[in-house]
């Protein structure tokens, strides 16, 4: 499992440029799925099983894109200005290392700041790839990079860039592996462009036309010094989302998750997230609407290059998802 997390998190695939991660995941799941396809926006869709007598058509979504940067201008001295793909934290900028999709590495520098106490705006930052002029800069306008940081193992906890949402991809891959039988027609969907506005999941949901939607994504925790006020903590089990700022989880889906966890004696936490949303939102409002919810993996330092998850939470997330999918649902 740790190897798979490392492989997935160390792949560079910012929003809209998911080819590399899609190939990695495709290899992992090809032997496990009944049918695999890639849609117009690049979503990887794996079907498992067909709809049995008491079964439903269920879409599971974990996004495979990550936040990143895109070059907007190469100046005469070879410095690269950029804009963001997804929610970038300016305070995580200075000194960060990046890698472009073609492998070119670089570091982020900032202009001299008038107020050193304030985080720089993105327009004050640039990428230095060691070039000395526009001409010898290997990066062109429109080229895309991700943050570079190796995955590290802290024993019970793991830190990497792009845990958001490669950890959700790991949950889906492992659930697909462990699921022995299911009455449902299941679509394991590795979605694109979540970080720029849950775009891939919307078109995937339209194409699949499911009866229930479940996203698997990260959520914040309230367990760090003077952090956000939030009940969710690392190590206390998967979080069952009740609400975030973009979606009210269907109460029947919440009950499906919590009831299954209680029966199977899997620890869980209830989650109310005040900022942000997940692929559950576009699934819920696709076509004429479906019941949708989200199973969250508690994660510290989300959208920084060092996102931390707990291995127990991960294992329990997989256990819960497998238990949910193994039996008929009663709504």
């Amino acid at each position, binding site marked *: 499992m740790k190897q798979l997390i490392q492989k997935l998190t160390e792949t560079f695939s910012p*929003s*809209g*440029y*998911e*080819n590399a991660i*899609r190939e990695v995941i495709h290899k992992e799941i090809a032997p496990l799925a009944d049918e695999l396809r*890639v*849609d*117009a*926006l*690049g*979503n990887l869709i794996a079907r498992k099983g067909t709809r049995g007598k008491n079964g439903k058509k269920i879409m599971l979504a974990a996004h495979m894109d990550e936040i990143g940067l*895109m*070059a*907007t*201008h190469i*100046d*005469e001295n070879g410095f690269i*200005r950029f*804009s963001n*793909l997804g929610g970038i934290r300016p305070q995580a900028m200075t000194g960060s290392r990046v890698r472009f999709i073609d492998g070119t590495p670089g570091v982020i520098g900032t202009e001299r700041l008038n107020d050193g106490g304030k985080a720089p705006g993105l*327009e004050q930052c640039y990428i230095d790839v060691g070039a000395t002029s526009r001409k010898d800069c290997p990066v062109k*306008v*429109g080229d895309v990079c991700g943050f570079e940081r190796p995955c590290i193992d802290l024993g019970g906890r793991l830190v990497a860039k792009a845990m958001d949402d490669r950890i959700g991809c790991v949950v889906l891959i492992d659930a697909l592996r462990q699921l022995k039988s299911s009455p449902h027609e299941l679509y394991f969907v590795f979605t694109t*462009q979540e970080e*720029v506005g849950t*775009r*891939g999941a*919307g*078109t*995937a949901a*339209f*194409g699949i036309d499911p009866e229930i939607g479940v996203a698997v994504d990260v959520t914040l925790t309230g367990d760090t010094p003077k952090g956000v006020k939030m009940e969710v903590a690392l190590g206390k089990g998967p979080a069952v989302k009740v609400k975030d700022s973009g979606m009210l989880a269907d109460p029947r889906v919440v009950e499906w998750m919590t009831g299954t966890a209680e029966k199977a004696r899997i620890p869980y936490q209830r989650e109310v997230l005040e900022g942000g949303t997940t692929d559950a939102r576009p699934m819920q409002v696709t076509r004429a609407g479906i019941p949708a919810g989200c199973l969250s993996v508690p994660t510290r330092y989300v959208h920084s290059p060092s996102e931390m998850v707990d291995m127990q939470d991960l294992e329990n997330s997989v256990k819960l998802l497998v238990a949910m999918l193994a039996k008929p649902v009663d709504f």
Partner: protein
Amino acid sequence: MAAFGNPQLKLLERLCNASAVSGDEGEVRRIVLAEIEGLADEVKVDALGNVLATKKGTGRNRPRVMVSAHMDEVGFMLVAEEGEGLYRFETVGGIDVRQLPGKAVLVGKDHLQGVIGARPIHLTTADERRRTIPLDTLRIDLGPGGKAKLGERATFATRFQRNGPVLIAKALDNRFGVATLIELLRHAPENIDLLAAFTVQEEIGLRGAKVAAHAFDPDLGIAVDSTPANDLPSHDGEENNAYNTRLGLGPAIYIADGSTLSDPRLVQFLSATGDALGIPYQFRQPGGGGTDAGAIHRARAGVPSISVSVPHRYAHTAALISRVDDWKNTLALLQGGLARMSRDVIAGSR
């Protein structure tokens, strides 16, 4: 390659001088319907007011290509009558209120002449002149006896002018696109089904394009629009690194904006088309903003999409300035691109 000259510029002039604030696109729609009569196999006006024209090709395995251009422009809506021809108004679409005092406007279907009044310099204090005048203190003044209805729209009164290579007008965003799409229909290639969408309500959230794309259900989408060029030199002599686009460098191909990450296959295809045909083009700097492509690519199960824009300075103000050649090259790039388009372009993985 189709001819480009006076007839095209005359068409653009009529389109720019028409009033079509979001939600009230009738005047431009009438010009479009008259111009495209007989050019398409099917023309309809949908529930929101989009003009949807289908021109079928004859080749085998033709891709269904949706090309959209929004008909609407930013402007104003009258919201309260205060007597003596004075009207309180709201802005429609993104307009910088700082630029409004002292501008001439045209109100309603009859183009009633009015002015957004400004207090003269004689009667203001130095302190007042440093402050922005808030929208709720501005009025459109039609003069005594001037009569308009609440809910009527108003536009900037600027009339289209051409000075050699330069165009000055209001609403070049996006009559450039509308005129381009009319010309594309006039010379539609046989290798594609051209699904032309003249859309409404783009400036207030890509609303027309959303339903147009659902109706057309295309294989790929191209939004033709007009985008700001912020290409003046920096006042402090530093390199301008946030120009968005530059006048004179040709059509702006989008890689990413706030609404769409263009399909990389289409970015590659259009730039290769420009290279092969010797048509200049530039990449719009990735950043914010949005076009109809933002709605098209998310329609149904997803549509590979891209945008191409004619650059102009002073977006969403009373007077935009642009280059004839940039428009000519935009039309040429799109004509060349459509003529070379096939399903193979989007056959591989994104």
